[in-house]
């Protein structure tokens, strides 16, 4: 391990190398074309050393942590020494270092005097890479070949010369080449900026020192990670959770099983026991599984540990090939994002068994993907890709956040007014839905609803959502959140839809998605009455919920709590419940408080077929 000889020069170097990665990210944000990049910010940037080890990742998307080394490894395997100054590599093949086809990696090796010293790395989620469904995101493809253009590691530039063959192959195989090329230009610009700044660092410190310090930055992150892990108790903890289904075999749950083993200064995360890979397009690559695992564990470590290879050395991740956590060819994986979010929930569950006061209950289940695509009457294509997340599980010290990005990503919402200006879509609602969050001493985050009205003649709606059958769990006495819900034309036919779907829509159709509510943390009967009152006054919960879930009696005319009646009711509820210990995990409300009448899958499926 490289020792830090001069802590001052080292700190200066570390600041420089991380600011390069950040500056790359800024360049992409500011110049990119697609909503999924510029607003959802589904991209990452990084600097890696000459061997492909991650040195610095930009402040972008946690879910991409770990993806860049895997991709670089593939480039190295294919090209070894066939790399020259001015080369730029591109790839997206999930079975050759990639994640899913829309995520295109662009790498630029950086040379000094003929020797490679580093890589500039970017990964961007592109609006469309072809395939059977616009947006290349569908959850119901059953093999990779349906999902779009599969690009093995190839040279996009050869010693500074454009690879016209590759460019024209891409142009003919994607629906919106202008957006794809605009976004690729942003990636190239980011790589150029990194190259220029790395050269400046070399001019200042000399190539030898730069190489040595890059190694030192990795070692430094490893030291910090191990030091932090050492302070936590040893042990082995498992957690189980289920994805509703794969969108092909409806009603067949998919098991996730995670075991966290902590020993000394390292952690092993093991996904053995998870379901075999599935037909639908939600199979994760190992790199995606790693990112979800790192995110769960990094969230209980100090916040300022740099994100790089050093972290990976202390946190090992294992996932057997051929499982949902590590799919093999020809597994479809376009919608694998879903599985990552659910793996984060599952890994947090294990952490909650290990460190009960450090993590939240289950969040909303991750980003729901809504894609609406088709053609205008003049046969020009439109594609709207939206990802939306927003409710955190209750935390041991505070309520889950309402309307805040899921921790695995750091996505922003696309402005409604811009969406309506750029796409044949009108958003009719974007607001919290009351009474859907899991009750708890600290309640889960409230989900929101989004209503999309389609304005073009005809199009295809494709939705990736989950947490319909298996609700976001509550922890230590907290209730689970209410399930997610999809409906067509809520004010007319109110037709239930499945959680994952691809369907034709026509002008005037309104698609409603209600996110799942997040799980609560702690006994709802211990919740401060003023918090319950505040939620009632703000219409985040109804008065009946205050009574039924929290045992709080409120006079809504005066907006005051009847403390005596509350005390009595809570005592009566505690007696009726008869808990000796708080249940660690709740996946359904305790008997007697559950609401009736949630439509289930069969209804939705039958309704869909009927429609």
């Amino acid at each position, binding site marked *: 391990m490289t020792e*830090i000889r001069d802590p001052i020069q080292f700190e200066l170097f570390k*600041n420089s190398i991380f600011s390069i990665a950040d500056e790359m990210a800024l360049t992409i944000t500011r110049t990119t074309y697609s909503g999924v990049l510029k607003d959802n910010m589904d991209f990452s940037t990084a600097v890696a050393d000459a061997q492909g080890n991650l040195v610095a990742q930009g402040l972008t998307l946690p879910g991409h942590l770990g993806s860049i080394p895997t991709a670089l490894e593939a480039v190295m395997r294919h090209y070894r020494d066939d790399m020259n100054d001015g080369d730029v590599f591109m790839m997206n093949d999930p079975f050759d270092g990639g994640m899913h086809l829309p995520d295109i990696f662009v790498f630029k090796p950086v040379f000094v005097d003929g020797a490679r010293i580093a890589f500039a790395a970017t990964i961007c989620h592109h609006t469309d890479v072809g395939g059977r469904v616009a947006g290349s995101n569908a959850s119901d493809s059953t093999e990779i070949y349906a999902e779009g253009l599969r690009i093995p590691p190839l040279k996009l530039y050869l010693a500074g010369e454009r690879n016209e063959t590759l460019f024209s192959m891409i142009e003919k195989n994607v629906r919106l080449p202008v957006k794809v090329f605009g976004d690729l230009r942003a990636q190239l610009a980011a790589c150029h900026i990194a190259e220029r700044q790395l050269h400046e660092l070399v001019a200042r410190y000399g190539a030898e020192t730069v190489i040595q310090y890059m190694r030192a930055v990795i070692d430094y992150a490893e030291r910090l990670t191990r030091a932090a892990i050492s302070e936590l108790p040893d042990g082995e903890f498992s957690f189980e959770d289920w994805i509703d289904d794969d969108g092909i075999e409806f009603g067949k749950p998919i098991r996730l099983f995670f075991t966290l083993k902590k020993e000394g200064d390292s952690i092993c995360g093991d996904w053995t026991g998870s379901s075999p890979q599935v037909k639908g397009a939600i199979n994760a690559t190992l790199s995606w599984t790693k990112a979800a695992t790192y995110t769960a564990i990094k969230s209980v470590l100090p916040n300022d540990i740099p994100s790089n290879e050093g972290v990976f050395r202390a946190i090992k991740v294992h996932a057997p090939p051929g499982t949902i956590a590590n799919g093999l060819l020809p597994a479809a994986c376009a919608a694998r994002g879903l599985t990552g979010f659910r793996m984060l929930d599952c890994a947090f569950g294990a952490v909650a068994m290990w460190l009960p006061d450090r993590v939240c209950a289950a969040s909303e289940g991750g980003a729901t993907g809504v894609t609406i695509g088709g053609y205008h009457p003049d046969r020009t294509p439109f594609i709207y890709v939206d990802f939306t997340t927003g409710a955190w599980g209750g935390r041991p010290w505070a309520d889950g956040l309402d309307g805040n990005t899921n921790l695995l990503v750091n996505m922003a*919402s696309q402005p409604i*007014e811009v969406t309506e200006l750029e796409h044949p879509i009108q958003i009719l609602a974007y607001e919290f839905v009351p009474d859907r969050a899991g009750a708890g001493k600290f309640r889960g985050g409230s989900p929101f609803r989004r209503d999309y009205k389609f304005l073009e003649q005809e199009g295809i709606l494709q939705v990736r959502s989950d947490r319909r059958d298996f609700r976001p769990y509550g922890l230590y006495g907290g209730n689970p959140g209410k399930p997610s819900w999809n409906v067509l034309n809520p004010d007319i036919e109110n037709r239930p839809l499945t959680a994952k779907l691809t369907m034709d829509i026509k002008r005037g159709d309104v698609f409603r998605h209600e996110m799942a509510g997040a799980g609560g943390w702690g006994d709802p009967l211990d919740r401060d009455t003023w918090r319950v009152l505040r939620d009632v006054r703000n*219409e985040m919960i109804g008065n009946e919920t205050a009574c039924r879930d929290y045992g709080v009696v409120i006079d809504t005319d005066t907006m005051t709590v009847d403390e005596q009646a509350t005390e009595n009711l809570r005592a009566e509820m505690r007696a009726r419940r008869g808990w000796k210990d708080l249940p660690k995990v709740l996946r359904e409300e305790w008997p007697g408080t559950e609401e009736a009448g949630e439509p289930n899958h069969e209804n939705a499926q039958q309704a869909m077929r009927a429609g």
Partner: protein
Amino acid sequence: MTGFRIGLDIGGTFTDIVFLGADGEIHTKKIASSVDDYAQAIADGLDQAFRESGVAAADVEELRHGTTVASNAILETKGAKTGLITTKGFRDILEIRNLRMPRLYDLRWEKPVPLVERYLRITVDERVNAQGGIDRPLDPEDAGRAVDRLLAEGVEAIAVCLIHSYANPEHELTIKEIVQRKAPDLPICISSEVLPEIKEYERTSTTTINAYVAPVVAGYLASLRQNLDRAGVTAPLLLMQSNGGLTTAESAGRLPMNIIESGPAAGVIGAQALAKAVGLPDIVTFDMGGTTAKASLVENGEVTRSIEYQVGGGIMIGSRLLTGAGYMLKVPAIDLAEVGAGGGSIVWIDAGGSMQIGPRSAGASPGPVCYDTGGTEPTVTDANVLLGYINPGYLVGGELKLNAPKARAVFEERIAKPSSLSVAHAAYGAHQIVASNMIRAIKAVSTERGRDPRGYALFAFGGSGPIFGAGMARELGMKRIVVPPSPGLFSSFGLLYADVEHHYSRTLRRLLRNADLEELNLVWDKMVADALEQLAADGFPESKRRVRRTANMHYQGQTFELTVPVPDGPIAEDTVAALEEAFGAEHERTYGHRAGTEEPVELVNAQVVGYGLAERSSVPERFATAKASQADRTPSRQAYFGPDMGWVETPVIGRGDLDAPRPGPCIVEEYDATVVIPPRSEAALDAYGNILIELP
């Protein structure tokens, strides 16, 4: 003795007052701010300043004011009880924000509390579409019920933001009429008047902030005026806006969102004016105080502005990527990059063995170790004392005795030993690391926008800025550093150098190549007319009114815009072609690439700035600075300039001693700041009393 202008800068801790006479005569006063009623401290301070200086209230020609009263109301959530009316289906725009958070992997993150709680957010059933057409008309009775509900809750202000109201304000205007009818004295802000621009969250948040601070600012301005009248000051009151321009008290009361960041803006404007006077068109300003450091860019004599920022967003590092820390305010503001680095920042060694500075600060209490007021952790100021940069005996003026040996002992124990360094090397390291953090702020406003700092001069001010300025400039390859007179009070001077400015903007979102020239001319002409009318109302004669038009554009599909000037005269075919070319050139300059000519450029916002020019040059030719007393100053001391140079016997001088150029090293001690002039440099005074440091 006539023609005095007064600059008044209120901070959370101190109120700084500067009197500037027509002949360059200067008086300064620094007093503690009165947090309960800021206007009180101003009245008291003025009173004292009048007595001490012999200037009479009647001699005051103009009063210019920078204040944190509006930003404090937001940061402390002590604004008005505000109601918000939105379109049905969109009750929670203000609270959902744009979902993003400023930290990764942080389960402890809490969102800023929404300025309007949900029960005070009411929806009305109406809908305007993206083209401005009315899909669903507003029922005035429904709107009346919404207003009644808010009035029944006892709101003190109402904000209205309906979807697509920037394209058609009709429904918002109806609601405004209803409010004015039902509650004639209640402040009412509608988004189509406050910010007629696309993006509902930004518009809602901005409109809400405006309503939320309006009663507070109005009350403050009224109280201030009363106090001034009582003190016999009848001169007009102008307020500094976040964008660096001045505005009248009347206009600040109506659009208080424009004065939120008025304090930091003043320093940048001061630097801009002084730099123009001495013939430096391109500068980076660097303002470092006790807890934060701020950088900004002045290019071709123009300050750079951002189109939006986050109030209370805190510290810069990463914040340009990780937004969401504060309250979104989409009004033009001087583009400042801020880092949490100041004299009080704590120096420590982390678990990985690396030296870290901050983000914790010893602040004023317990303060740095050398203050001997209970501080036990080494700070940046302690490092500067150990390096010999700051007088080891006392802070200049002698009011605060320093305990350098104590600082040395703590540094030795906590920093030097664990990292096997000498105390001098460790202190120098701390100094360098702070500098490198602050360099990130400078890079954020220069290299991150494609600007090479080597072509710029560094303007260093604030209590600690001049200690670091020259060293940072050397790191960045910058050749020239300017330290203005009274660097510690410079923001108050900045107020005196500003012009009156009014900003206007209209969202167009038209492809430039298909633009309707008639529409463009109409939109710009209207804004120009509004600007001129406002300037006339402010009292500027025709010869002193200036108008500037700019176009805010991007390639179709992009989200971030770049701004280019619009040439004078009617907009014709060739103007449009020129704008398209100018945008491409700016894109290339900023990001290093541009799209082909086939890519359509979209005109997002048409913008106009109206300037009311001061009657005469606002920068005095020569500062009549009082000569500092030489009596208690030692002629030289040892200062450490890095392992290469080691300890160097360094002359300690006053600003006046730089009448003739001198080589570094030397240290200039002043009442409100210390200036470090390092080895291998040369320093001299210019005609305006600035210290100019040249690096080889």
